[in-house]
C-alpha cells in the first residue's frame, strides 16, 4: 500500500509528558507503574496513572468538555508541539480536509461514576451539574480534540476495546486513499475509572504486582491510562516529517470468545499476516515486534504462538506494558508512538519487570533493551470481542 508518514506524534502516559519523557524512561528501564491509590479503589494492584490530571481543567472555551479523559487528551495535544504542527497542516489543507479518527474504550465514564455516587436519595436523579454528551458519550473526546484543533474533516470515535487506537490508522489510511481528506489526526485516549479496574478484576485478569509480560510467573495486567496522537500525511506533502511511516495494517476477528483470545492465536496471526501482505514485506524484514503482551496468561501464550507461526523463532519481540501498563483503548497509539521512537533511536526494549521467560514460549522474547538500527517494527493490539489489529511502521527518510 501507499505509505503515510507520521508528520509528528506525541504521547502522555505513566512515563511522563511527551516523547522525550517516554524515550528517557524506556532507555533508563524505569517503569511508570505504581501501587493503585486511584479514587479509593479497594483492589491490590498496580496502575500506570498519569500525574497531575486532578489539578487541571480543560481550556476555558471548551469547559463543558472538562473530565479526566479530555484533560488527558488536552495534555497530550500540548506536548511535542503537536497542536502547532496540526495548525500548520490546517493552514495548508483547510480544516475540512483533515480527519480526526480516535479510539477509546470507556471515554469519560468516570464522570458518570461520580454522578452515580451523588444520586438524589429520593428520586435517584443524577446531579444537575452532570454533563453526558461532552464526557461519557463515546464520541466526546473526538469532538473535544477536533474542536481544540479547529478541524472539520471526517471524524469518528472507534471503540473496539484494546485495539481501538490501532485501528484508527487503518480508517485514516482508507479516508486519505479514497480522497475524503488529505491528512488525519489519529490517536486515542483512555483514562482510569472504576468500571475497568473492577471489571478486569471480576475476570481475574488484574495482577497484584507490576505486570510481567511473557514471564513464567506472570500474574495479570496492570491497568494504565494514556493519550497519544499522530498526524498522518502523504509523504510528498509532509515536510519536514518524523522519518517514520505507516507501511501496513492488518485487521481480523477471532470469532472465538468475548473475553478470551483464541488459544492458538489464529486471529492474531491473521492480523499480522494481513499487515505483512498489505505492506508487501516478508516476515524477515521486521526488526522488532512490539507485542500486545498484557501479562495475562492466555494473551501472552497465544501471542507467542501466533508470532512463531508467522515469523518463526528469530524476530526480537517484547511488550512495553511493564513500563506504561495496559492503556486499553489508548494502547494502540501508545505503542505506535513507542514503535516510532524505536525506529528513530535504534532501540529494542526488553520486557520490563520480567524475570524468566515462560519456558513454553518459542518466539524471541527480549528481557533487556538492545540498541542497533531498527528499520521496521510491527505493533500488535488485541481486544475483547476478538478484535485484532497489527500495524507496521518503518523508517522513511
Amino acid at each position, binding site marked *: 500500500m501507499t505509505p503515510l508518514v507520521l508528520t509528528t506524534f506525541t504521547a502522555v502516559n505513566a512515563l511522563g509528558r511527551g516523547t522525550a519523557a517516554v524515550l528517557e524512561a524506556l532507555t533508563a528501564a524505569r517503569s511508570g507503574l505504581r501501587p493503585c491509590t486511584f479514587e479509593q479503589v*479497594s483492589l491490590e494492584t498496580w496502575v500506570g496513572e498519569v500525574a497531575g490530571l486532578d489539578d487541571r481543567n480543560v481550556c476555558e472555551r471548551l469547559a463543558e468538555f472538562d473530565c479526566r479523559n479530555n484533560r488527558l487528551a488536552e495534555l497530550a495535544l500540548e506536548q511535542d508541539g503537536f497542536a502547532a504542527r496540526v495548525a500548520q497542516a490546517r493552514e495548508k489543507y483547510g480544516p*475540512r480536509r483533515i480527519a480526526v479518527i480516535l479510539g477509546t*474504550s470507556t471515554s469519560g*465514564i468516570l464522570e*458518570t*461514576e461520580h*454522578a*452515580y*455516587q451523588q*444520586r438524589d436519595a429520593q428520586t*435517584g*436523579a*443524577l446531579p444537575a451539574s*452532570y*454533563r*453526558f*454528551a461532552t464526557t461519557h*458519550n*463515546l*464520541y*466526546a473526546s473526538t*469532538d473535544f480534540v477536533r474542536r481544540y484543533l479547529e478541524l*472539520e474533516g*471526517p*471524524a*469518528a*470515535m*472507534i*471503540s*473496539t*476495546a484494546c485495539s481501538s487506537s490501532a*485501528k484508527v490508522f487503518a*480508517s485514516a*489510511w*482508507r*479516508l486519505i*486513499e*479514497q*480522497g*475524503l481528506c488529505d491528512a488525519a489526526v489519529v490517536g486515542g485516549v483512555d483514562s482510569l475509572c*472504576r*468500571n475497568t479496574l*473492577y*471489571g478486569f478484576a*471480576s475476570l481475574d485478569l488484574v495482577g497484584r504486582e507490576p505486570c510481567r509480560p511473557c514471564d513464567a510467573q506472570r500474574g495479570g495486567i496492570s491497568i494504565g491510562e494514556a493519550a497519544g496522537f499522530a498526524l498522518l500525511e502523504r509523504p510528498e506533502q509532509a515536510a519536514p516529517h518524523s522519518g517514520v511511516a505507516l507501511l501496513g495494517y492488518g*485487521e*481480523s*476477528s*477471532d*470469532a472465538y*470468545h*468475548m473475553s478470551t483470545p483464541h488459544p492458538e492465536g*489464529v*486471529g492474531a496471526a*491473521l492480523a499480522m499476516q494481513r499487515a505483512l501482505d498489505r505492506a508487501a514485506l516478508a516476515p524477515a524484514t521486521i526488526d522488532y515486534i512490539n507485542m500486545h503482551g498484557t501479562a495475562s496468561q492466555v494473551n501472552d501464550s497465544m501471542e507467542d504462538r501466533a508470532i512463531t507461526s508467522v515469523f518463526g523463532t528469530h524476530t526480537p519481540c517484547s511488550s512495553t506494558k511493564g513500563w506504561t501498563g495496559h492503556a486499553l483503548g489508548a494502547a494502540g497509539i501508545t505503542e505506535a508512538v513507542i514503535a516510532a521512537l524505536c525506529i528513530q533511536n535504534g532501540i529494542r526494549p526488553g520486557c520490563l519487570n520480567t524475570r524468566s521467560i515462560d519456558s513454553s514460549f518459542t518466539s524471541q522474547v527480549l528481557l533487556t533493551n538492545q540498541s542497533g538500527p531498527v528499520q521496521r517494527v510491527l505493533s500488535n493490539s488485541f*481486544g*475483547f*470481542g*476478538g*478484535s485484532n489489529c497489527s500495524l507496521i511502521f518503518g523508517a522513511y527518510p
Partner: protein
Amino acid sequence: MIELWIEGVGIYAPGLVGWAQAAPVLAGQQPYAPVEPPKLAPALLPADVRRRTTEHIRLAVEVAGEAVQHAQADAAALWSVFATSESDGAISHNICEEVAKTAPEVSPTRFHNSVTNAPAGYWCMAVQSQAPSTSLSGFDVSFGAGLIEAGVQVCAEQSSVLLVAHDAPFPEPLHRVRPMSALFGVALVLMPARSARSLARLVVSIEPTLHALSRMPDAGLDGLRTGNPAARCLPLLVALARRETAELFLPYVHSQALRVNVQPV
C-alpha cells in the same frame, strides 16, 4: 466520493419489524403504527448465548442477520462496521450502579459485554467471521459516521461490508440526560460492484456547504428519525422502499451533511 451497491436491508424498530413488513410502510402504501416490536430473539444466537446478551446486542445481531439473508451474502466473508451512539446503556447503568458501592462486585459477563464492540464480537462468533470489524460512534450522527467508514472500506479495500447502526433507549437515570424515544436497528449489505442482487446504487459525498437535512413525510416516522441516532438513516430506507431515484441529505459530523444519491436498479 464513495460509490457502492446495496444488496440487503435489515430493520427493527417500533412498527418496522423486518424489511418485508417495513418497506410498504416506508413507501407510504400502509400507515405507520408505532406498535411495540416483539421480544428480540435473533435466530443466529443459540439460546444459551442469547441469555448472556442484552437487548443492545440482540438488536444488532437481529438486523445484521436479516440484511445478510436478504442479500444472500456469505456472512463470514463480509467485513463489518457497527455504529452506535452510546454503546450499551443498560450495562453502563448496571456497572456504574455497582461501582458506586464501597465493595463493588461487577459481573464478569456484564463487563465483557460492556465493550462497544460486544455486538460485533457476538456477530463474528455467530457467523464464524474472521474478517475485519470496526465499531464506532459519532454521537447523534453515528449512522453517517458508520456509512463513511463502511463506504471507504467498500471503495478503498474493494471489500463487501455489512453496516449495522443500532441504539436502544437508556434506563433511568441516564435516560433523562440522553433521551431516546425508541429502539432502532438497521443493517445494510454494501458491495463494491453491481450484481444481479443489487437493489440500488449509492453515491455518497460530504456536502461542502450547509444543507437542509432530508426528513420523513410522516410525522410519526420523522419523530422516530430524530428520536434515535440510528434512525437518521430513515430517508435512505424510504428511497429504497419506493425504488425511486433520490437525492438525500443525511446528518454528518460538525453539522455537515452527507449527500446521498440513490439510484434503484
